[in-house]
């Protein structure tokens, strides 16, 4: 497991993101195109009202600057009072990643000119400020989330995201293929990109659209899962809720026989339940994975098979010993 270097995320990358529906930022660039290569160093935004009024202490200049109705009205006032030249000069002396105007507000000729001269991109969106801020923070936190790439297969089985890991040739892809055949879904084969959202959720997806949803099956070669099994057999991303480690049966290793002790795998600092599943010819791994998924769902609903089973045994043993005691009494 290797930590991925955080790539430089520029304003141009922000503009070219392909976002849909509730995440669409609806941005377009109106000035300062030369600065589109500026990097966005932090996933935060700032309302620059105080800075424009001349208060630059603790100014979050490295953040995206969002101009709403208030800020835009203030720009107009600055221009009316003839204070704009100086204010804009100070403002743009910081290397701001970009300025974003919400509500389709017009920044005004003079602001655009100042931005153009400073090489600072000015973007406009038709969303209102609070909606835009929500979407932007959601999108940026997604992009800035810690990332890693793992070797394994990510499948969705009965709604549970399961990451199959194990050495090459142990049968991860074959297991996944059987699961797909049984109506479950493939998220990514072989190379899974995992991002940690909110520090608690592990989101897994394929690394690349071109290679996505293809599988390599020894003896068959590369197959296109979407074309063979239909769009119902695939999913773009899924939270990882269980890790199944497939390994060759080792007669000297002790495998869990009861399921009371819970193993966990740690990915990007998040603990995920883990099962170690020994593979031996004739063992039907896909059915074991399916059962593991259903068992995981039961656990989420508050029913723990192994624990419940043990409690019943203990209760039975107790009643048994009470009965023995009762029947062995002398006065009976």
């Amino acid at each position, binding site marked *: 497991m290797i930590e991925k270097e955080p790539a430089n995320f520029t304003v141009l990358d922000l503009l070219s993101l392909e976002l849909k529906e509730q995440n669409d930022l609806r941005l377009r660039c109106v000035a300062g195109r030369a600065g589109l290569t500026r990097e966005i160093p932090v996933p935060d935004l700032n309302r620059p009202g105080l800075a424009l009024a001349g208060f630059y202490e603790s100014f979050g200049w490295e953040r995206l600057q969002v101009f709403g109705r208030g800020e835009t009205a203030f720009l107009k006032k600055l221009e009316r009072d003839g204070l704009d030249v100086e204010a804009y000069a100070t403002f743009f002396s910081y290397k701001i990643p970009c300025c974003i105007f919400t509500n389709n507000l017009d920044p005004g000729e003079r602001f655009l000119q100042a931005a153009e001269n400073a090489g600072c991109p000015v973007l406009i969106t038709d969303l209102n400020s609070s909606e835009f801020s929500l979407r932007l923070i959601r999108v940026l936190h997604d992009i800035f989330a810690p990332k890693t*790439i793992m*070797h394994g297969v990510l499948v969705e089985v009965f709604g549970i995201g399961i990451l199959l890991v194990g050495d090459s040739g142990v049968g991860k892809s074959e297991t996944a293929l059987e699961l797909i055949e049984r109506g479950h879904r493939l998220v990514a*084969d*072989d190379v899974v990109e995992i991002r940690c959202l909110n520090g608690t959720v592990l989101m897994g997806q394929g690394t690349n659209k071109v*290679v996505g949803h293809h599988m390599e099956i020894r003896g068959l070669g590369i197959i296109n899962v979407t074309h063979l099994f239909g769009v119902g057999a695939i999913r773009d991303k899924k939270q990882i809720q269980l890790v199944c480690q497939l390994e060759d049966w080792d007669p000297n290793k002790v495998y869990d026989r009861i399921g009371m002790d819970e193993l966990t795998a740690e990915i990007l600092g998040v603990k995920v339940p883990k099962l170690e599943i020994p593979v031996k010819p004739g063992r039907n791994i896909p059915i074991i994975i399916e059962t593991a998924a259903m068992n995981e769902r039961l656990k989420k609903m508050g029913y723990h098979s192994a624990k419940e089973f043990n409690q019943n045994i203990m209760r039975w043993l107790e009643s048994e010993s009470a009965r023995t005691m009762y029947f062995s009494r002398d006065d009976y």
Partner: protein
Amino acid sequence: MVEAETTIKNRAGIHARPSALIAQTAVKFASRIYLEKAGNRINAKSIMGIITLAASFGTRIKIIAEGPDEQQAVDAIKALFESGFNEELG
């Protein structure tokens, strides 16, 4: 652990056939073998993994092996890259 660096010598880059060659060579060794491009590390025994690297002509690739036959593994894979996978060289 043994590491070596190489560049892609064939014009077409690492498409399906070269990646199959790499994976086929890699599985012959017991060591864990990785390829790394710009900080992205993948398992060299996985064809899909190698393709995902999107290594085009001239890209620098690091070969890393860890295990009992690490030196032989790195040498064999490096030789494969150097030969340009018997394809047209750039």
